[in-house]
């Protein structure tokens, strides 16, 4: 039972980060929950492979992202609204014309959230992955490299491309 306790103490607190990552990578809530559950079960099975003293966060997030990309691959061929939700974007643009300055302050926060979320959704999954891990979850490059299974150099170049795309899109929308 000690393994269960250790797992509860180290992995369960990471479910929030795990679910946030999964939800940002996958198209709907149900798929994201499935991926997290699948990842948690797998992590539990292979908990022994986590060395003593090793940071569980990148280890577990790596399992989560693999479950997500497996799910994405499974869905390939279906229309993927997560990848590029053009309709939502068009609607947003129509509802919130960018030249309008401040009078819509009441709508402000919500509008910014919609714009930021839409810009994140417009990224390809590999770019969205590094941005979520870096900007929302604050992981360092080394951990992101471990989670995504890519070299640190690739993490940095993906981040910089993702940032450029986000800045372009958000500036076009009139942010900040």
């Amino acid at each position, binding site marked *: 039972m000690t393994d269960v306790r250790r797992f509860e103490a180290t992995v369960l607190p990471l479910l929030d980060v795990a679910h946030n990552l999964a939800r940002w990578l996958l198209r709907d809530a149900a798929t994201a929950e499935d991926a997290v559950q699948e990842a*948690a079960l797998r992590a539990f099975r292979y908990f022994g492979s986590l060395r003593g003293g090793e940071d569980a966060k990148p280890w577990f997030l790596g399992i989560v992202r693999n479950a997500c990309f497996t799910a994405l691959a499974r869905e390939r061929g279906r229309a993927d609204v997560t990848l590029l939700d053009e309709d939502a974007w068009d609607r947003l643009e129509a509802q919130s014309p960018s030249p309008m300055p401040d009078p819509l302050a009441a709508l402000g926060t919500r509008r*910014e*959230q919609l714009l*930021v979320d839409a810009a994140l959704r417009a990224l390809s999954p590999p770019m969205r992955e590094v941005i979520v891990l870096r900007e*929302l979850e604050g992981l360092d490059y080394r951990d992101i490299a471990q989670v995504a299974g890519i070299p640190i150099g690739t993490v940095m170049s993906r981040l910089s491309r993702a940032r450029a795309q986000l800045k372009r899109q958000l500036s076009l929308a009139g942010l900040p």
Partner: protein
Amino acid sequence: MNDDDLTRLLKQHATRHPADERLRAAVRTQMTLQAAAQEAPPARPSWRERLASLTRIHPLLAGSGGLALGAALTMAAVLIAPRLTPDGPLPDELVAAHVRALQVGPLYEVASSDRHTVKPWFQGRLDYAPTVLELDSPLRDQGFTLLGGRVQSVQGRPTAALVYQVRLHKIDLYQWPVDRGAAPETLQRRGFNLVRWSDGAMQYWAVSDVDGAELQRFASAWRTAAAAH
């Protein structure tokens, strides 16, 4: 806009999706069931522990619905009434694994009707290469379709499980390396049928709720196909 502006925008405005209570409960339930299944079956003095672990499941049930309740009760039945047979608790463990896969899932982690997808999937997940049969085999002609495969903990070891379907029934086929052959033998546990055999290289166990004759038909079709493979 510079990088810092962007970071600030993302931090302030991007939606966060924390795990909700239902997901937490589901994960904990799954974990408890898995832990119960992984507990080394011969460790018999741990009755207290088993009962304790069962009561520990209880508070989790509130958040995770009847499915978990069903699975937990199934596990309870397995844990409370281990039958002593020449095979030890193995048949019970296999039936429990089959039931849990059906109820809680995943029934298969790699989905396919093509062994060229399923077989390579096991690479790196097991320390042996399981035999996977589907196409070009008489199995399909006899109505047995390969749905996919998963890695299942059996007696604490990662084990290949293939999932076949016949009509509406699912058949789990577990296999692991052995060095002795054995003729097919049929067993029953809690309404499930099991057939075990060995070809001298692999030990096979088929588990399903199809009737015994049908499962034997599956075993013999498999043996024929594997011999020709």
